[in-house]
């Protein structure tokens, strides 16, 4: 029933209506609520019916030609995370995720299973997106909802575990990051850090500012996107490079790609402007009722990206992504629109856990991007099926299709959500983690890179000797 209505009206109409109702229920001023609903519609419309079809058609045709003429098997194209967010909020699960998410968080706070109150309502889309992918893969709303809850619980716990490290490193007291992209590498970073320490890599210090000065125009994702698109065009039409019209096509492809990378954040900003009224109100209600004990506020991982070490790690990884796309064995996914996003967000918790060490952070981040490329390759068919089922009309581009930028946490949970055993495994892991964390919090903090001041001074002394 709900999905029937969703399909008939389309996301650009239904999401604003849902948000409007939600806002009126929790007491946002009607005029403000209506304005915010219209902005959500405008943002969604800009993304889903204007920008995404434009870009998918443009790059899709070139990629399709590349696959047929050169045999380079890279058929899946990333068109940016906003499409994922739009999909996440456009399904039945998307309609449920905000109330369910808040209720689960409150229950976990009351049971002392978490010390974080997540005020980052907008980023509930990650959970809704994973839940929606599972829902459209299995046809089971129950599986979708369960995995949505599992992702939230996992992120709240991992957010608590990394909080001391990240608060100290980024100088953001009282804030935790239960954010799916920022935490995607946290688990992987723990064993890596252990290895890096063993082989002495953690001791090699490189100054991030000197590296960053050397990037020049390659530090700009619009420029790097242009270059990748031009390379794709040259490979795709390599038999016709003598013709002037081919070069016109290649350069238009590059400029069009740059235009999309530049413009899609602007459309997304309209969507978020609509969301601001809702998240403001929820924050006011929740933080006023906030529990008496000391809690952290859950925030967007974006807060950490301005850190010089995160920026440098992200930039280095962004450049490395280009050869990785073409030469990583088995990769079928072109990370394009999110070039300036994914490497930076994946670096967030990883850099803090590595204590700002650029070389160790960079290796971790590159592994993260490689995993994202594999996740994108594996889940692209499911994603394009989901996009079509929801009723987003994208141009037909032959063998090339739109793919999702599946960061590690998105891939793992989408995979686990598709069978009852997987869901059971997810919850079992979550509860084992939770039990062990509550029993030995200090061990976990330390594993995630937290150094309390006593042992730090000791460390320095050892170094001096």
């Amino acid at each position, binding site marked *: 029933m709900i999905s029937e209505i969703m399909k008939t009206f389309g996301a650009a109409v239904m999401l604003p209506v849902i948000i409007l109702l939600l806002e009126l229920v929790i007491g946002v001023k009607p005029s403000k609520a209506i304005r915010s609903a219209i902005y959500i519609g405008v943002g969604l419309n800009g993304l889903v019916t204007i920008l995404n079809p434009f870009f998918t058609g443009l790059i899709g045709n070139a990629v399709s030609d590349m696959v047929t003429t050169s045999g380079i098997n890279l058929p899946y194209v990333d068109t940016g995370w906003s499409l994922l967010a739009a999909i996440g909020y456009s399904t039945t699960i998307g309609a449920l995720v905000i109330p369910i998410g808040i209720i689960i968080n409150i229950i976990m706070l009351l049971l002392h299973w978490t010390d974080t109150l997540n005020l980052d309502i907008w980023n509930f889309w990650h959970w809704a997106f994973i839940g929606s992918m599972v829902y459209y893969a299995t046809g089971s709303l129950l599986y979708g909802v369960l995995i949505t809850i599992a992702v939230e619980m996992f992120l709240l716990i991992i957010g608590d575990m990394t909080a001391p490290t990240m608060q100290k490193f980024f100088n953001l007291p009282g*804030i935790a990051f239960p954010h799916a992209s920022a935490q995607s590498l946290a688990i992987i970073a723990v064993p890596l850090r252990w290895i890096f320490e063993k082989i002495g890599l953690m001791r090699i210090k490189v100054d991030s500012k000197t590296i960053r000065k050397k990037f020049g125009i390659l530090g700009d994702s619009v420029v790097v996107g242009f270059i990748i698109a031009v390379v794709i065009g040259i490979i795709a039409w390599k038999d016709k490079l003598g013709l002037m019209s081919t070069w016109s096509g290649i350069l238009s492809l590059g400029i069009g790609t740059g235009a999309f990378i530049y413009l899609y954040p602007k459309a997304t900003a309209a969507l978020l402007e609509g969301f601001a009224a809702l998240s403001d109100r929820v924050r006011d209600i929740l933080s006023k009722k906030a529990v008496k004990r000391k809690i952290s506020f859950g925030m967007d991982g974006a807060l950490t990206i301005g850190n010089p070490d995160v*920026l440098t790690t992200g930039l280095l990884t962004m450049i490395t992504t280009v050869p990785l796309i073409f030469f990583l064995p088995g990769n079928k996914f072109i990370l394009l629109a999110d070039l300036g996003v994914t490497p930076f967000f994946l670096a967030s918790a990883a850099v803090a856990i590595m204590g700002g060490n650029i070389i160790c952070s960079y290796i971790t981040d590159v592994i993260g991007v490689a995993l994202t490329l594999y996740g994108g390759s594996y889940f692209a068919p499911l994603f394009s099926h989901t996009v079509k089922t929801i009723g987003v009309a994208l141009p037909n581009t032959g063998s090339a299709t739109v793919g999702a930028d599946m960061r590690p946490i998105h891939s793992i949970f989408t995979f686990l959500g598709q069978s009852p055993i997987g869901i059971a495994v997810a919850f079992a892991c979550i509860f084992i983690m939770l039990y062990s964390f509550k029993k030995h919090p200090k061990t976990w903090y330390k594993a995630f890179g937290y150094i309390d001041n006593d042992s730090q001074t000791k460390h320095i002394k050892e170094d001096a000797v």
Partner: protein
Amino acid sequence: MFNRAKKEEKVFKEVSGLVVCADGVATSTIVRVALKEGLEDMDIEADLEQGRVLDAGRTTKGGNFDFVISTAGTDLEDVDIPIISGVPLLTGIGKDKVFEQIKDVVDKKYAGR
């Protein structure tokens, strides 16, 4: 009629700010909306632009901005105008201090006039 003319006489001080976050999309939008509303109540007309934290130095170079407000750290390179943390506008704690800081910027700007 008369009332209206009088209202228009009320001087709105103007200030222009660059709101930056990681990707120039998410948290910077929330901060921009909150700032715009809050400053209007203080009779300050704010011209706010959004951008990526990575480009902050380049964007502010032209001298078009009076301040930068950032949700992604305040240790920005090559920025020689005041940098204010926007995080309180996201958490709701310490909001007033942010507005005070902007008021200082505005007062300094209008001090010589």
